């Protein structure tokens, strides 16, 4: 089920929130689990087997791992492998077979199954639980119900934020009763996220969709405008989803971590990755980068660790060389930044707006790699398909004002006070419903990861 669908907005969300509030506290967790499973199984009930397997595996596996007091390393490895196997099967098997076939010359035919929504997200949450318990950062959860709620909490189940078990442990054990102000703030945050998704991201997605199929018509201007639109789309889409997830959790009395902090205002790529998909970068830092030695073992080892982490980050996003290339692109830029740029006195004296612009430009080119259009896109960007057709000019002109609005939200500082704040959420909800009725919805970009 998708947040920006009528099924969710008019039926599922109000039903679940209203029932959750009127329900006796002891019934809330079972209800939340049932609602989350219904939410997940709505698109394809067969996937329920997968998430139930993940729940049972990690709940039972961790109890088994810690039954003798000291966690068993062997069992941890078994648990990690069993967690990662479904991810490899669903997400990477086709990619691996394809590349193995190319290397060996064998004809390996593998019909990749459809990717279960959110598999990368809930697998990473399960891994974080296993590792946190193994490292002694969290206690094993004895209640299957509470563990299952942690793993399947519907607001963040399919596209994050990736919530570490330690973030929710106390809230699951003693859930807070949502008060009026929390509920209002939660709903307000949800509406803001919905507006970002439906009014901005989907429009930018339509512009990008009109351009990326026809580079000859798009020309250089269209390619640059399209790439800018894709950069806006991916931000508003994903941060909108995170806002909705955070808002829904808040409506039910849960606090989950923030995932974005105005990333396009970053002054360097290091800064950007502290602000973009913060829960994923935090996950890789905690469970890969630091265990590999982080920056404690010299510059060469640090650079190698950065390369490993970013190659994995690329692969996490999808099974394709363009994702790996995208990860390595950032790895190299980050290494250069840490080794040279941020150490030089010159960079810090460069005007803020220029640093922001250079950072955004590097990120935008990265999205070009990420998009998977590869050489055709870069040929169009560099003039390989001519300037632009009149249709493209008209398209760019039509989307111009909306792109300015997107740019304002992305690049300008947040106002200290927003005079119409009280009316923003209902207005966004109304306009989003209007856009959904008129144009339908576009699935979230991050659902494919």
């Amino acid at each position, binding site marked *: 089920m998708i947040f920006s669908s009528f099924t969710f*907005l008019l039926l599922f969300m109000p039903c679940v929130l209203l029932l959750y509030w009127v329900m006796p506290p002891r019934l809330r967790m079972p209800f939340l689990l049932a609602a989350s499973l219904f939410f997940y199984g709505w*698109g394809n009930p067969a996937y329920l087997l997968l998430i139930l397997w993940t729940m049972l595996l990690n709940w039972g596996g961790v109890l088994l791992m810690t039954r003798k007091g000291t966690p068993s390393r062997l069992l941890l490895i078994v648990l990690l492998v069993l967690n990662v196997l479904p991810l490899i099967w669903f997400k990477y098997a086709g990619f691996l077979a394809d590349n193995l076939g190319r290397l060996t010359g064998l004809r390996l035919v593998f019909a990749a199954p459809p990717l279960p929504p959110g598999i990368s997200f809930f697998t990473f949450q399960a891994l974080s639980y296993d590792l946190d318990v193994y490292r002694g950062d969290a206690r094993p959860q004895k209640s299957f119900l509470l563990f299952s709620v942690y793993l399947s909490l519907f607001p963040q189940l399919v596209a994050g934020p990736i919530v570490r078990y330690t973030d929710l442990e106390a809230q699951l054990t003693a859930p807070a009763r949502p*008060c*009026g102000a929390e509920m209002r703030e939660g709903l307000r945050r949800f509406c803001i996220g919905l507006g970002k998704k439906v009014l901005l991201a989907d429009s930018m997605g339509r512009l990008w969709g009109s351009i990326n199929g026809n580079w000859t018509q798009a020309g250089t201007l269209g390619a640059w405008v399209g790439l800018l639109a894709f950069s806006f789309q991916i931000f508003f889409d994903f941060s909108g989803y995170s806002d909705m997830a955070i808002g829904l959790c808040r409506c039910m009395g849960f606090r989950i971590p923030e995932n974005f902090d105005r990333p396009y205002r970053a002054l360097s790529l290091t800064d950007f990755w502290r602000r973009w998909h913060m829960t994923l970068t935090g996950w890789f830092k905690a469970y890969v980068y630091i265990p590999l030695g982080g920056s404690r073992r010299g510059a060469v080892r640090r650079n190698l660790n950065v390369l490993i982490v970013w190659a994995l980050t690329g692969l996490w996003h999808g099974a394709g060389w363009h994702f790996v290339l995208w990860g390595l692109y950032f790895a190299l830029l980050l290494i250069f930044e840490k080794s040279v740029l941020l150490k030089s006195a010159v960079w810090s004296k460069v005007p803020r707006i220029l640093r922001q612009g250079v950072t955004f430009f590097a990120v935008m080119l990265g999205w070009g790699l990420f998009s998977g259009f590869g050489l055709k896109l870069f040929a169009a960007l560099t003039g390989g398909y001519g300037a632009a057709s*009149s249709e493209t000019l008209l398209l760019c002109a039509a989307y111009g*004002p*909306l792109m300015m609005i997107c740019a304002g939200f992305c690049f300008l500082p947040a106002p200290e006070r927003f005079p119409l704040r009280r009316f923003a959420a209902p207005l966004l909800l109304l306009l989003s419903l*209007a856009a959904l009725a008129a144009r339908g919805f576009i699935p979230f970009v991050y659902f494919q990861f």
Partner: protein
Amino acid sequence: MMTKKRMSWDTAAVLLTLILLLAAGVYALLWPHPDFSDSERRYLTEAPGVPSLSAWKTDQELEDYLSDRVPFRPVLIGTDAVLRTALGERTLLDAWPAAGAILEPPVTGSPSAVTRRLEQFGSLAAALNVPWNVLVPETHGYLLRNRLNALLRAQYLTEEALFEPLRTDAHFLDVFPDGTDPQEVYYRTDHHWTLQGAYMAYLACCRAGQLSPLALDDFSLSRYPGFLGTTQSRSGLPPVHSDTLVCAEPRAAVRLTLPEQEAAFDRLIFPQRAETYDGYAVYLDGNHGMLEICNDDAPGGTLLVYKDSFANCLLPLLAANYSRIVAVDARYYAGSFSDAAAAAGAVDRLLFLYSLDSLVNDTAVARKAGH
């Protein structure tokens, strides 16, 4: 005290919002709705079937069902269209508000399709051994081009390439002379001709057929205000202006026969249809696969017209000059153009009358004209 009061307001506001959303959902899901939307001129999505695990598609089916029946859907669609127009996105709507009218987007396609159609029309006429003409009016947007901004004008100028093969063909009837006022010959809310536009086409047809045209005053005229046409509904915009349908039919006694429906009428204008969502159906009671108009007092012979809806307001005018008109609409007629010609019997002249879009892009015309 204040905090407590404040909190209760917050709770009430949130609860009210959720209850309203749920009420809208329940209304969309359970309340009986008509199968057809007048405002959008289309059939609504059917109720989702019983789900099966092997082919689970409840998600999209229910979504479409709810979306079609969400309360105040026309208002929501209108709100979205107004917002997009205000943001400069009007050219992304299905029909564009520009220069005081709502226009269809420019017709795109290949000039070779026009050439192919002309060959097909010529072959049919040669087989029947009768004189023929083709009439394709310039679009409203093209006529208005000089009142549009440069980007929009460039879009409509691309239609010139499609007219090129027509203008070099001796059978083409050019309806609108230079300087024609687009506002006079096209409705503001619809893509069809006004009576004035149809009358100019009538004059062109009479010239080609060497017939004496009647003055407009010689026809029986009727007026139907409050007409909101197709481009209005396609744009989704709330109606600001409406048009007045002005209809003409011969004063002489005429007979309209619809062979497929086995129906006959003694009139060409159907006033009751002006009250419906499709006001343009006031002409000839709408679109039909085949129709026949007879006027025993008319001096001309039999005219066979292959047409789309553009001809509906022209045929009542031509009925004053032809004793028999047979009209075939490929979108609704099951057979080929040759079948229609055989069914029409002896004819004296052929007229192919299509909008530019139908001529270039209508697959039914392309397919059936070839046989």
